[in-house]
């Protein structure tokens, strides 16, 4: 196991060889509040990158700009080299509040992205069924969201995002409305899922432990205005038992390092 690679400051970051999402000079202001200033970031293909920072650092705003759900005031976002300003088929979003249709079954919710694209019913249900099983909800296809626990609902949200076969999955604090035990189980599953799915994940979280536990790359944002303060690549071996990671020395050191860096922003 290698040492934790650490790059300090907003100094130019050498572009990774293959980056799927390129964010250039993004800025966003809400009224008098400068949410983001001059964000320059590259997201490597096939990796899980976390956007981490205290509240008010603009991490969710940045994710939604990448998703094309809110417009940036300045700067550009390119996916696979193409500039985007609206949602597209190469990106799929997992929502903090799940955003499931209460009147639709798990099956219809998961297949909804395909339904909107006009995929025929048999085909989209076959695909949805596969991803429902993939996230561990096989047997729950005909249940309604109110019959599921918070953790299970977010699995539905994840299966829906996986079903549309996007290259980039955008997850906005997906576990914040899920209780602690389910969150840990879900994090372990996400690590396993990631090795099966050849996808790029961009993950917003305010939990340092969560970010270090699951990420290949952590982008630390500092608040007011939101800027990139540090990029960390925790080199943790995730191939074995996911339980073991919590006791891994590199894991613990990285958590501590990030905490020392973030401390100054917490009153």
């Amino acid at each position, binding site marked *: 196991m290698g040492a934790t690679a650490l790059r300090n400051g907003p100094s130019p970051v050498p572009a990774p060889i293959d980056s799927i999402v390129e964010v250039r000079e993004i800025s966003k202001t809400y009224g008098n509040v400068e949410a983001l200033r001059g964000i320059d970031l590259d997201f490597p293909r096939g990796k899980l990158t976390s956007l981490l920072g205290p509240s008010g650092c603009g991490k969710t705003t940045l994710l939604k700009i990448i*998703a094309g759900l809110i417009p940036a005031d300045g700067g550009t976002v390119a996916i696979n080299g193409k500039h985007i300003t609206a949602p597209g088929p190469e990106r799929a979003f997992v929502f903090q509040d799940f955003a499931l249709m209460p009147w639709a079954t798990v099956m219809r919710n998961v297949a909804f992205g395909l339904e909107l694209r006009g995929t025929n019913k048999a085909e989209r249900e076959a695909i949805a069924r596969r991803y429902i099983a993939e996230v561990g909800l*096989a047997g729950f296809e005909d249940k309604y969201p109110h019959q599921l626990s918070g953790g299970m609902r977010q699995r539905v949200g994840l299966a829906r995002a996986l079903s549309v076969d996007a290259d980039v999955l955008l997850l906005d604090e997906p576990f914040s409305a899920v209780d602690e035990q389910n969150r840990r189980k879900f994090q372990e599953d996400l690590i396993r899922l990631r090795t099966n799915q050849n996808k790029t994940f961009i993950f917003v979280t305010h939990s340092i432990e969560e970010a270090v536990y699951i990420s290949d790359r952590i982008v630390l944002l500092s608040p007011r205005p939101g800027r990139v303060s540090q990029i960390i690549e925790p080199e943790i071996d995730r191939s074995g038992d996911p339980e073991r990671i919590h006791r891994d020395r590199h894991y613990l050191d990285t958590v501590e390092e990030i905490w020392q860096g973030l401390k100054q922003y917490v009153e």
Partner: protein
Amino acid sequence: MAVSIRTDGEAAGLASSSNRSATGASWDQPILLRLVSIVLFAGIWEVAGRIPVSFAFPTFSDTIVAFFGLLADGSLATAYLSTLQPLVLGVVLSAFLGVGLGTICGLWRTGEWLVIPVFIVLQAAPVAAFIPMVTFVYGIGMTAKTLAVMILALPVIVLNTYKAVRNVNESLLVMCRSFLGTRWQTVTKIILPDASPVIFAGLRLGVAAGFVGVVLAELLITPTGIGDLITFHRSRADYAEMYATIASIIALSTLTLVFLQWVEVRVFRPESRGA
């Protein structure tokens, strides 16, 4: 390789909604309670009729007998034939027009400013006062009766639909957009299903108001149908027949509302079927 992770805790969480029906005795069953409520009501009516509260107040049993008498001689059927035409026409027109207008106003600012104030005034106004005016303009035919139904039914349907569409769940709209839903898909697959409980509440109120409208029209405008049957039996002091007619229209109105609720749950909100 599929990841399987269902924990016992999660599976247990699923059961909470379904184990409710297993608890308690027959008193928990709503159908039985409703029957008891009806029997109790009939009993009190019978007692009140026997005291008697008023010479113009028949007993429950006399009313039932009168009801079957009216059924047998065909006068009830004839009356309903003429009442149901403007009622059904007015209610169906109000439902489609009301939901359509309400949806447009909820989605489109200009429409909201043009249309909604009119209906807020209409809902606040004692609309029965318009009925003589309607008669004056459209005479005493079917048109006037249908209009009377619509004047009463339309405002509440429009306003409920408008409010429901306006207050649609924002996060579902964002979700639909992020999964590339078109405007039309957003309206039909998110906005209308999400708004349907409030729209249906409006439809139920509107249908009930439509019944009020048609009876008012028949009492005030044209002595035909159910309104005429009520007036006729009152004038002959056949109070049991009069009450039977009134009770029949109340029963019909109630059954229509129950049917509407059934349609709503069946078609639009399947998730609330068991709840």
